[in-house]
């Protein structure tokens, strides 16, 4: 294949894949119902409506057919300047020059995929509970999905985790969180207000009579959301709820133990005042405590 390696950016001067990932909001995942021949045109329409990241997921397709379909979808994504992710199949992602791969809980370990695709590739991981989130972070996932928010026919038998898990994921990561699972335009807004950075949609766009109009409805609803601001805690990006005060963040981060000191934007804040301090986007927090040391730390 003469495709560029997975994860290579199209332009030496343009934004990196991770910068584009941070800016993405509407994540389209292909369904199995749309005929392969129609998928590229559905994708074209959805991109016109506001989709800015696409994942190819097809079950029960011959490898050769899937490679051909991936080539066509990847070409559409590249031409329209959106990110192209392949579900599960790392070798396919590499073969077709995708920007990255999405791994479910039963798929390949992130480190193995990283080894095959290189440092530049985007690697996403599905999470269904807090443990999955922590594990994905320790394995350096580039983004995580959180769901299913509602039970869906796409993943039969998997219990819904609600927006609560989206909020937990948003709290515990410093990478984008994609809410997924039976979300319509109104719920997409709720997902962002629960801490998600992106919303993944399958049937609500792929099966819509007008995929472009459906995507646009999602974008419009998401524009109205008050999304969670990013702050920096000990140098690491982290999100908090809009209008949250320091006391709530401290509770979420379990900072109750004696001897923990918090500094916000260079000012040490006494514990008694934490509930009076509102957090704002871009705030820089240092959370310190005593560790062993003699001379020279």
């Amino acid at each position: 294949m003469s495709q560029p390696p997975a994860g290579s950016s199209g332009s030496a001067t343009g934004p990196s894949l991770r910068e584009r990932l941070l800016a993405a909001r509407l994540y389209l995942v292909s369904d199995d119902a749309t005929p392969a021949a129609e998928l590229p045109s559905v994708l074209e329409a959805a991109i016109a409506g506001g989709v800015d990241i696409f994942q190819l997921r097809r079950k029960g397709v011959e490898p050769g057919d899937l490679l051909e379909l991936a080539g066509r979808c990847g070409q559409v994504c590249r031409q329209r300047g959106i990110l192209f992710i392949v579900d599960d199949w790392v070798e396919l992602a590499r073969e077709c020059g995708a920007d990255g791969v999405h791994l479910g809980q039963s798929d390949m370990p992130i480190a193995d995929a990283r080894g095959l695709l290189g440092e530049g590739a985007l690697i996403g991981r599905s999470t269904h509970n807090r443990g999955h989130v922590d594990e994905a972070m320790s394995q350096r996932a580039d983004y995580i999905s959180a769901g299913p928010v509602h039970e869906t026919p796409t993943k039969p038998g998997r219990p819904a985790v609600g927006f609560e898990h989206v909020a937990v994921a948003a709290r515990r990561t410093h990478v984008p969180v994609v809410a997924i699972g039976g979300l319509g335009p109104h719920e997409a807004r709720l997902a962002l207000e629960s801490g998600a950075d992106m919303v993944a949609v399958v049937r609500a766009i792929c099966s819509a009579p007008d995929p472009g109009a459906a995507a646009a409805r999602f974008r419009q609803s998401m524009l109205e959301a008050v999304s969670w601001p990013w702050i920096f805690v000990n140098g690491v990006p982290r999100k908090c709820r809009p209008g949250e005060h320091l006391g709530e963040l401290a509770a979420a981060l379990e900072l109750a133990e004696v001897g923990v000191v918090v500094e916000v934007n260079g000012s040490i804040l006494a514990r008694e005042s934490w509930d009076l301090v509102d957090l704002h986007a871009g705030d820089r927090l240092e959370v310190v405590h005593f560790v062993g040391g003699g001379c020279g730390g």
Partner: protein
Amino acid sequence: MAEDDALKLGGVRLGSRLIHGTGKFPSADVLGRAISASGAQMITLAVRRLHLDGDRRSELEGIDLTSYTLLPNTAGATSAEEAVRLARLARAAKLSDFIKVEVVGEQETLLPDPIETLEATVRLVAEGFTVLPYASDDVSLALRLAAAGAAAVMPGAAPIGSTMGVLNPHNLRLIIAKCPVPVIVDAGLAVPSDAARVMEWGAAGVLVNTGIARAGDPVAMARAFSAAVAAGRSAHLAGLAHVEGAAPSSPTEGMPSALVRL
């Protein structure tokens, strides 16, 4: 040791003149037992970011910090500004008003920056801290730090983290002799005899970390340092004998007359 021989610093009475470091111990358990064995009442600490994800436990886990006088340090600071910030963070934990000022001027030797150390001392004294600056073994600097309000000065015996012992005995003795505030010898003391030696000269105390933490049996070594510090202090209080040149220790009078072969 007599009760009235306690080391008084910042309104605190320390019965033990051994200050115990808490870095580089093989485990939290060994650290806890070493501190207990040493009898130390003051321990040093560093201020660092809390690991928010994953294991939050530090090597201080299991040590009741409220049962010691805490001497947080500003380790890691390379300027007065950074030292002041770390000191404020340390005090905000509300466990101690003491601060051991450490401002390293150069990363390879970890030797202190005297100018920034003095500046940090001036500022922190003004903010009401009980300031114990770690300093190079320079007499004038020790006097300037004392004049700036340091509760004690802490000249290094040798570079931080080393076990090189007392590199400049002459300077240390001069500082001990001249300095109007207690002199606590810090850094580089390798073996109990190093500690005993500086205590004999009149040092008010010693801070030991690596010499204990990296010993084969840190708990036993903590006990040995404790005994050495007490012995050195007793010797100092007793008054050291000082005689240059040879002089007989036995009476020159009353020798029986030499045997005469008949």
